[in-house]
């Protein structure tokens, strides 16, 4: 049902539909030079200063592919289990656009560098999923256009301004299969891609600088239907958050169209971040007649299996694999595991503490708790600070063996943060070792009870919540060193004796 007043579809109706989503994203590779020439691959230079005859498409200029970019694509594909075909080539994709100097883009059509593969991801609640990749191919970026109206917006602009610094920057296009069923899954897929590319060092994946741009093909169908519905392609999603909102809005729009007796039109729609809706971008039919053909300026690329094997041998644990190791192996909750995985330097540092202490859970609590707090307060990364993984492992062991209590551990950590050194040495120097000696704690308990006859009477009259106050008093008398569990045990024993 559609609410006549708001035009919104009820949750019940919504639940009868299933969304089918496929993501395509473009990621700028992190190289020193551009894809087909020796100009800098740099963001933020003055306009039209990183250009040469090749990337400006001056007559007679010839492209030569960047070996590093090719290796990075192969590396990215292998991380997702893609096949590396033995033969690949570059094709020309022909269309006219002011930010494309050659009037064609060098891309890959039917023989890409990688084919297939699977992207594994997890949702915020820890649910896991996977989405097949169709391919990852290599192409070149276009220039960047801005609009020349007084306020920089398109409306009212009489002309557009083009900067070709970005033209020819190596770009990988990742095409996913339509395996995703919600906006949440689509974002989780994108996050998994981004984490992996960052970890592999093939891209900085900065959405705000445009180094990751994504489009989503979205359709809806009644649950249980075998056929896909008609899809719309959503463009102009500039952050993970806007991708999520755009896809959710488009799903709702399509359901409302179908429920209203209409049909979804296959078209390109642009996301309007401010209005929170997608708008049709009636593009002309022939805009999609790209007339691909092999680029005669570029010779084919052969990749013998041994070459792919050599790259495969250098692959390290992917962020997804690390997440699984933390959750399934260490018993860390999904949220905390994600926090660790999202900071590669921190998670490597954490792995050393976990290995040295053999107590990954306790180590995680220190790393994400007090240590992260100190890092935030001082603006120094944990992995770049004075606390060594070995020192923290020592501290973990001291707390696990009850050699010190948690408030002492906090103090030790604060000293370690400023001075570095060994946790054991600090415990000794500062006299923070936990007092677990029965007689010693019993003496302190007796002292506190003698000094607080009224509180003792309250307890015996049934006000047992004063136990906290008394425990605190004993801890204070011990200068924070008494074993809190033993203190409570002895307090109860004494209070209930008489």
């Amino acid at each position, binding site marked *: 049902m559609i609410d006549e007043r708001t035009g919104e579809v009820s949750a019940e109706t919504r639940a009868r539909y299933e969304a089918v989503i496929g993501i395509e994203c473009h990621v700028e590779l992190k*190289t*020193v*030079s551009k894809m087909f*020439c*020796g*100009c*800098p691959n740099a963001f933020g230079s*003055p*306009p*039209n*200063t*990183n*250009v*040469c*005859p*090749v990337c*400006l498409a001056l007559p007679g200029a010839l492209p*030569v*592919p*960047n*070996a*590093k*970019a*090719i290796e990075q694509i192969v590396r990215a594909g292998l991380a997702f289990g893609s096949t590396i075909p033995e033969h690949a*080539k570059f094709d020309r994709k*022909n269309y*006219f*656009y*002011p930010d494309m100097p050659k009037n064609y883009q060098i891309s890959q059509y039917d*023989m890409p560098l990688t084919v297939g593969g699977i992207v594994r991801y997890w949702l915020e609640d820890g649910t896991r999923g996977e989405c097949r990749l169709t391919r990852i191919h290599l192409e070149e970026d276009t220039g960047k*256009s*801005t*609009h*020349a109206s007084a306020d920089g917006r*398109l409306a009212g*602009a*009489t*002309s*557009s*301004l*083009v*900067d*070709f610094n970005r033209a020819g920057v190596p770009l990988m296009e990742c095409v996913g299969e339509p395996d995703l069923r919600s906006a949440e899954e689509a974002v989780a897929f994108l996050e998994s891609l981004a984490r992996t590319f960052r970890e592999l060092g093939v891209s900085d994946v900065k959405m705000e600088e445009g180094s990751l741009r994504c489009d989503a093909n979205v359709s809806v169908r009644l649950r249980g239907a075998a056929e896909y519905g008609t899809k719309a392609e959503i463009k*102009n999603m500039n952050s993970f958050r806007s991708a999520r909102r755009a896809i959710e809005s488009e799903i709702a729009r399509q359901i409302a169209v179908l429920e209203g007796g209409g049909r979804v039109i296959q078209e390109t729609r*642009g996301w309007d971040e401010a209005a929170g809706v997608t708008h049709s*971008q*009636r*593009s002309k039919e*022939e*805009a999609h*007649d790209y*007339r691909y053909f*092999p680029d*005669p300026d*570029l*010779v*084919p*690329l*052969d990749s013998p299996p041994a070459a792919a094997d050599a790259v495969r041998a250098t692959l390290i644990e992917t962020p997804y694999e690390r997440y699984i190791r933390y959750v399934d192996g260490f018993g860390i909750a999904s949220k905390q595991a994600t926090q660790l995985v999202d900071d590669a330097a921190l998670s490597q540092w954490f792995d050393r503490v976990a290995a040295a202490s053999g107590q990954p859970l306790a180590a995680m609590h220190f790393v994400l708790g007090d240590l992260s707090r100190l890092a935030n307060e001082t603006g120094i990364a944990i992995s770049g600070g004075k606390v060594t993984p070995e020192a923290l492992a020592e501290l973990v062991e001291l707390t696990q063996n009850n050699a010190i209590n948690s408030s002492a551990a906090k103090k030790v950590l604060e000293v370690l943060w400023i001075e570095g050194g060994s946790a054991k040495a600090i415990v000794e120097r500062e006299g923070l070792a936990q007092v677990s000696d029965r007689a010693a704690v019993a003496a302190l308990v007796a002292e506190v009870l003698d000094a607080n006859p009224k509180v003792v009477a309250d307890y015996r009259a049934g006000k047992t919540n004063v136990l906290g106050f008394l425990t605190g008093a004993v801890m204070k008398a011990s200068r924070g060193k008494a074993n809190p569990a033993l203190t409570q045990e002895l307090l109860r024993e004494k209070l209930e004796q008489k």
Partner: protein
Amino acid sequence: MLVMASDRIDIRHVARLARLALSDAEIATFAPQLANLLSFVDELTELDTANVAATAQVVPSRNVERADALRPETLLSHDAALANAPQTQGGYFRVPRILAEDI
């Protein structure tokens, strides 16, 4: 029997893709010429290629690549880069307004 090449060409579509504004007279001239070109290429299909591997290139070389390094000597000066631009503004190439629906 080959399909007549002229039946396969939508000359107006091809012209539109190439951003060419052809008059009716020009269409009458160029359509048969393009058809003749295709018929000429069609002759190649008469060759027996059963034992010839498919290729996208006629030169024998493979994997011509360059190391990922800067070549500052090839950079154009800002003035040289913009020298042939019909219009510039603030260091940019200035072009006719890009329409909203084209983005």
